[in-house]
Each structure stands twice: as structure tokens, then as C-alpha cells.
């Protein structure tokens, strides 16, 4: 069942969206249980993990009590979820600091990165995909689609390494890493954001190009495009006015999947560029064996993915009037 069918399934658009929202809430709830269970039930007591194998049993026991790990799992879960709902992600077993504020801070960095990456991907994919589709029988179109095929195969971190080598090390145009908050120095912030965003967006742009191309190819065969031409519209205006919105429907699905991929891809890119985002916090927390922090970060990332899927489904109803009424 596609997302479109799911939305179209019931009555008015408001009902459909409300139902989809219900699914989102249930999914988030189930995901929180899965994340919690994963961290809490699996062998290796979190306190033991945090303190390392050399910790004395007394110390482990004291830590367990301190963080409430000796209570029943259900109580621990409710406590955790209750806290998360108010923005309190608990206190780190390792640093003894509140996780929430740091998480929020890091999330900001990651969202900038993902947003900029998506923008780069769109800026690459939409024009290239359209040109490749319109010229698919000509050499230029074939070259574009071959290039996108190769682009898809390049791992984001390889792109990052090459870009750093060229633009930071050789040419010295842009910093090779690090983060300046936008409020502190907007220029430095932007310069620091370019290479990570391009690394992240380049590969996704290649993936997206292929989908844009095939969506535009499909839409070009539609009878209504012929009608538009018969009205006197020239090929590109006909495509822009009548084709793109219809081609957007399948592309938006992919866009949703891609946003999720970007969110996770950011983990790798943040590592390469030493950006203080959610991904590097996740890796640091894993290295520090800070399971509660890992649990919180994973939940935020998963909820992010679920939220994107929800928004994609809602966007369908906006793009395709056939789904608005049934």
C-alpha cells in the first residue's frame, strides 16, 4: 500500500489526515518502547556498561539506585517517556549532566546540516533530472543519467574526503571542519556549512536526479501534456506548467525517504567535519557507553524519520487534488 492509497482510503481529507496523525502517534509510542526495550532489556546492565568491567559491585549497585535502575522496567519506561514529553531526557550516567539541553543544542546543528544538504540535493536534482528527461534521446541526456548513476554509488564520506582535500587543503577556500553558531558569526557559519552540506547533498542529489528524470519521463507521455502543446504551449513551458506538479507526486515520496537518509547520513558527515551535531553526540555517547544518552538520541532520530513520513503523506493531499475528495 502506498502512502497515497493510505491517505485516499478514508472519506474527507481532514479525516484522512487525522487518521494518519493517529498512526503517527501510535508509531512514535511503539518506537519509544522499542528503543527503551532495546537499551534496557538487553544484557549488560546500563550502570555496569557505563562504569566499565572493573567497577566494584558496590559501586554498580549504588549507581543503579542513584539512577533508579533497580526499579521495575515499566516504571523506568514511564518515567523516561514522561520526562521526554516535557523535554527532560534524564541525567547522563557518565557525565551526570542533563541530556535534554545538550540534545536540543546538537539537534539544531544537525537540522541546519540536513536542511542545507536537502537544498543542495534539490538544486542539483530538479534541473538535471528535467534536462535528462527532456533530452533522454540525445547524448547530453544520456551523459547526465550515466553521471547520476555513478554519483549514486559514491559514499557520502568519500565525497566529503575528496571535497575537503580539494577545497580546504589544496585551495584553502573553505574550512575543513568545525562549527560556528549562526548567531555568533553568520559568514563563518555559512562557510563552515558549505562543504558538509555539499558532501551530504551531492550523493542524495544523484539519487534524486534519477527519480526526477523518471517522473518527468512518465509525465511527458501523459495525454494532458499533449493537450497543453495543442493549446500552443512550447515544450518547456508546457512541462513547467502542467508536468512538474504531477511529476512532484512520486518525487515527494522519494524526498521523504531521502530526508530520513540525510538525517542518518549526517551522523557520518558530522564525524568527518567535526560538527557538534546529534550524530557526533551519538557516537561520543556510544564511545562513553552512555546508554541513556544513546537512547534519547536514537529516539529523537527515529521520531524525526516518522515525522517526515507523516508530512510526506499530508503533502500528497495538497499536491494531488484527486486525493482530496473521495
Amino acid at each position, binding site marked *: 500500500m502506498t502512502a497515497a492509497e493510505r491517505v485516499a482510503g478514508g472519506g474527507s481529507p481532514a479525516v484522512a489526515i487525522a487518521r494518519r496523525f493517529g498512526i503517527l502517534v501510535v508509531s512514535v509510542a511503539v518506537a519509544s518502547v522499542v528503543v527503551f526495550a532495546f537499551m534496557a532489556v*538487553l544484557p549488560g546492565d546500563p550502570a555496569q556498561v557505563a562504569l566499565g568491567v572493573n567497577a566494584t559491585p558496590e559501586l554498580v549497585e549504588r549507581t543503579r539506585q542513584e539512577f533508579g535502575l533497580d526499579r521495575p522496567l515499566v516504571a523506568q519506561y514511564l518515567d523516561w517517556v514522561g520526562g521526554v514529553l516535557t523535554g527532560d531526557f534524564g541525567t547522563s550516567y557518565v557525565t551526570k549532566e542533563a541530556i535534554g539541553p545538550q540534545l536540543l543544542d546538537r539537534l539544531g546543528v544537525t537540522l541546519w546540516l540536513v536542511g542545507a544538504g536537502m537544498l543542495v540535493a534539490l538544486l542539483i536534482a530538479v534541473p538535471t533530472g528535467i534536462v535528462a528527461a527532456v533530452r533522454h534521446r540525445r547524448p547530453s541526456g544520456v551523459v547526465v543519467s550515466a553521471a547520476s548513476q555513478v554519483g549514486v554509488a559514491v559514499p557520502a564520506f568519500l565525497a566529503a574526503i575528496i571535497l575537503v582535500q580539494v577545497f580546504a587543503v589544496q585551495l584553502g577556500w573553505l574550512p575543513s571542519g568545525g562549527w560556528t553558531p549562526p548567531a555568533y558569526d553568520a559568514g563563518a557559519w555559512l562557510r563552515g556549512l558549505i562543504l558538509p552540506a555539499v558532501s551530504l547533498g551531492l550523493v542524495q542529489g544523484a539519487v534524486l536526479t534519477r527519480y526526477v528524470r523518471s517522473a518527468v519521463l512518465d509525465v511527458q507521455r501523459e495525454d494532458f501534456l499533449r493537450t497543453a502543446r495543442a493549446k500552443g504551449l512550447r515544450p518547456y513551458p508546457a512541462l513547467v506548467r502542467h508536468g512538474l506538479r504531477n511529476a512532484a507526486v512520486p518525487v515527494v515520496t522519494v524526498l521523504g525517504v531521502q530526508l530520513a537518509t540525510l538525517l542518518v547520513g549526517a551522523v557520518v558527515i558530522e564525524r568527518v567535519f567535526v560538527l557538534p551535531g546529534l550524530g557526533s553526540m551519538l557516537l561520543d555517547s556510544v564511545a562513553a557507553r552512555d546508554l541513556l544518552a*544513546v537512547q534519547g538520541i536514537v529516539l529523537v532520530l527515529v521520531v524525526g524519520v516518522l515525522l517526515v513520513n507523516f508530512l510526506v503523506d499530508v503533502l500528497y493531499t495538497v499536491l494531488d487534488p484527486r486525493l482530496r475528495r473521495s
Partner: protein
Amino acid sequence: MRGNLVVGAALVGLVVVTALVSLLWTPLDPQAVDASVRLLGPTPEHLLGTDKFGRDVFSQLMVGAQTTLYVGIIAVGLAAAVGVPLGVLAAMGPRWLGELVMRTSDLVLAFPALLLAIMLAAVYGASTLTAMIAIGVATVPAFARVARAGTLQVLSREYTLAARAGGRSRWWIAWRHVLPNISGMVVVQASVSFAMAVLAEAALSFLGFGTAPPTPSWGRMLQESQELLAVDARLALVPGLAIAAVVLGFNLLGDGLRDRFDPRLEARR
């Protein structure tokens, strides 16, 4: 296009042969550390030079192909073995079961391979096994969806309707009609998933959550090369291009097979 299939098969074949040969023979011991030949450029003895420990890059690359294929085969095999029956079941079984399978797969999709692997690594410590399991589990929904869609298509065809009308059992139909008819789609999906698995494994090794040292892995070769980029970009390019070539190979193979199995789509690709 025929070209896709040929180029894809050639690239994949090259990696498979390399991995097989490396089981029996490599030019040098890929794990042999030799401080006297650190960071050597390409020489007749070291075709692709040596790394910072003086290990032979070409030999590492060959053995690394094993890791890549091994992780891919197990992960994709696991995903197909779980996902395909689930998908068929979702299409043929009662409505609630189909609903359950699809909703669950939606949920699993919210846990990308990389995230699952990091979660597993956080609890169990990183290893090739956690990477394979994580990638496998994250890929199950892809197979379940393909299998379900394919099964629904087969079930609507006349020959299955005839078989049903003839009183054949569900499972007979599943075995006799559904599986043979969806196998093409599953193979295409396997090829595409393999490419994604290779990328995921590389990313994990790059982050230090994949294959543990000293077993050579392309992702880790990349990671180790990072600090030496300014000195010698070759160390990053060699494994990087190897990863890209395999991913390209499997993607092209998938596209080529798709055109083969579904000629109607040929014009579009």
C-alpha cells in the same frame, strides 16, 4: 539497456573473482606490518603502495572484497529470507495479518541500518556480526514490500484465479505460482539492496562500528587514510573507488535485470 546488465555483471564479477582469489592467494600478507616500507607509492612489489603501517594496499583491497561480499550476502540473505515469506503471507493471509506486517515494516523503516548498527554496537560492542544483523533487519521491509506487491499482482491473474476455482490450496498456489513469478522482482531487489548494504557496511567501518581490526575492510581503510589525506590521497581513493565500483556494479545489475524481467520499463531507464 543491455549495457547496464553487462557493465553491472562485469563489475560484480570482478569483485567476486577478487574475493575468491584472495581466499587462496594475495601478493603479500595484507596484515603484515613493516615499518621500513611505510607510505610507499606504487612499486612493482606493492602495486598500490603501502599504508602507514607498511601493509600492502593491494592485498588489503583484495581481502577487503571478502568482507564486503560476506557482509552483503549475509545481510541481504537474512533480509530476503525473512522479508519474502512475510510479504507473501501479508498478501495471501487474512487482512489483519497483512495490515500488521505492513505497519511493522513501516516502523522498522524508521530505524535505518546505520542507526540500528550503532544501537547494537552500543550494547554488544561493534563487530561484523552486529553490522550484518543491523543491515539485514533494516532491509527486511524492502523485501516484504516487493514480495507483497508481486504476490497481489500474481493473485489477480487468471491462472491463479483458475487454480483457486479448481480448489487448489493457498500454499500450493503460493509455491507453484507466486514464488516463481515474484522471483524476478526479488532478485532485482536483492541486487539493489546489496548495493545499499555495501554502502552501509562501508559507512559503519568508517565510523568504527563495523569489522574490527585487523581484518581488512574498505570502509576502515578509508577511515585510516583520513588523517593522511594531505600526505597521500591515494590511500583514500583506492578503497573509496572500490566501494563506488561495487555499488555501481550492483545498481547497474539491478537495473539491467529489471529491464530484462519487465521489458515494458526498458524505455524509461
